[in-house]
């Protein structure tokens, strides 16, 4: 679903398409996106300048929450890269009863509200509550589909002749996987992992119940922004938010690069 289709850049189209008539449409959709999406985000950037931006962003608590968020998101992206590829592999290449049910379940984290995801983990793993493991678990839950759904279609479309050729030339299965299959899957794995990373950096709902929000321990950046706003410091909240916004934009750019690379 959306994981694979996010950020698919438009292909060059023939020049004869009916363009001029859509200029009104272009105006309307730009206005709509501008009003709903860009105007509020611009307000965050402008407001962050009110606070002494660097003082807020380099305060100990802000740095600690941002560093923790980044590290745990990298871990989440890495685990997803491995487990997501494995899940996609099993779904495409393995045959076992219940495979379609497993395929259906992969999308559950996209359909389930994040607050419910957090609550389910609290209910089943009460011992990890208020630890870094809890945050990791919650983030893995909500990001599970990204890599699977990015890799699956690529794996399905992969030409098996090459693998058979490699095998007939004496390559062991491991070598075939490492030298033939993995390079073909790499762009998909990376873009899935990048999406998972972006989601993990900004995630709020699933983390808020389970993390305990302990400063210097389990406090993630998004919850810190929320706390700042709650304690009536919108400018400070905006400063941290700008850092998060910067990371989001960076990830989107990286995604475009990966996709351009994948098409070559």
């Amino acid at each position, binding site marked *: 679903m959306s994981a694979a289709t996010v950020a698919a850049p*438009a292909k060059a189209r023939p020049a004869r398409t009916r363009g001029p008539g859509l200029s009104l449409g272009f105006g309307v959709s730009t206005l709509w996106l501008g009003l709903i999406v860009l105007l509020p985000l611009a307000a965050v950037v402008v407001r962050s300048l009110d606070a002494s931006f660097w003082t807020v962003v380099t305060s100990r608590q802000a740095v600690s929450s941002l560093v923790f968020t980044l590290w745990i998101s990298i871990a989440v992206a890495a685990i997803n890269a491995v487990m997501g590829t494995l899940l996609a592999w099993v779904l495409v290449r393995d045959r076992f009863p219940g495979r379609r049910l497993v395929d259906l379940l992969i999308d559950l984290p996209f359909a389930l509200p994040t607050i419910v995801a957090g609550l389910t983990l609290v209910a089943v793993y009460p011992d990890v509550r208020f630890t870094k493991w809890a945050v990791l678990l919650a983030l893995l839950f909500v990001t599970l589909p990204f890599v699977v759904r990015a890799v699956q279609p690529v794996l399905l479309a992969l030409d098996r002749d090459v693998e058979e050729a490699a095998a007939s030339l004496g390559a062991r299965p491991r070598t075939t996987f490492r030298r033939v299959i993995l390079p073909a899957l790499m762009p998909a794995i990376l873009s899935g992992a990048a999406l998972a990373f972006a989601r993990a950096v900004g995630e709020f709902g699933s983390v808020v119940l389970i993390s305990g929000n302990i400063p210097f321990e389990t406090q993630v950046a998004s919850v810190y922004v929320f706390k700042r706003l709650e304690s009536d410091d919108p400018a400070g909240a905006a400063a941290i938010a700008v850092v998060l916004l910067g990371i989001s934009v960076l990830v989107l750019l990286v995604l475009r690069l990966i996709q351009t690379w994948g098409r070559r």
Partner: protein
Amino acid sequence: MRHVLRLTAIGYLLTLLVVPVAVVVYRALEPGPAEVWASVTTPAAISAFWLTLIVTAIAVPLNAIFGVLTALVIERSRSRGRRLLDVILDLPFAVSPVVIGLALVLVYGRDGWLGWLPVQVLFSLPAIVLATVFVSIPFVAREVAPVLREIGDDAEQAAATLGANRWQTFRRITLPAIRWGLATGVVLSTARALGEFGAVSVVSGKVAGDTMTLTLLVEQRFQNFDLAGAYAASALLAVIAVAVLLLMTLMQRRAEA
């Protein structure tokens, strides 16, 4: 080797996903049907349910209309700005829900840019709708755009050549071709609208019986140590999620057929 992979994959899904969700549904139903019914029909729960439905009923049609329009512009227009539009469209997927909520507070709040508007936006229905539209804005366009690219515009051109006006071409040629993509986008958008928590929790004000949505109710009950109540509301949301999943699979199968 094959069995090791299979067991690892299934084990991972079970521990992370299936067991937790199943346990919550089980715990929700444990007190017995009468208790569960009472818990999801308290005045606060009914009001939260209705608010969630109303917000979804406003946000999803808006997303559908503007989503199709945006997809058409990205795929069919020649204007230079369409690439930029394409990039902006990804932002809601990448930006944290809390940042989205904060952004709306800064625009519509007391001393915000549009704080002078005569209607109360923040901490009431309009802000909840704005937050919901923001987070779910890309789904329809992202499902419809690839379909538009795939079908090309030959049929549309032919219709135009034969004298069909733009609206006729859209209704008779384009819309039937994109219907399953549109339907999938609508389902995804609905799921996100029903389940949004972060952005809504910042802008809603969380007034019980007034601006409390279902997901906010789950949080509030949990924090008030009403675990059974939180589980019951969660189970209700989980049931909706599973229904969405089934619908989506059904639609993807139809689209492929």
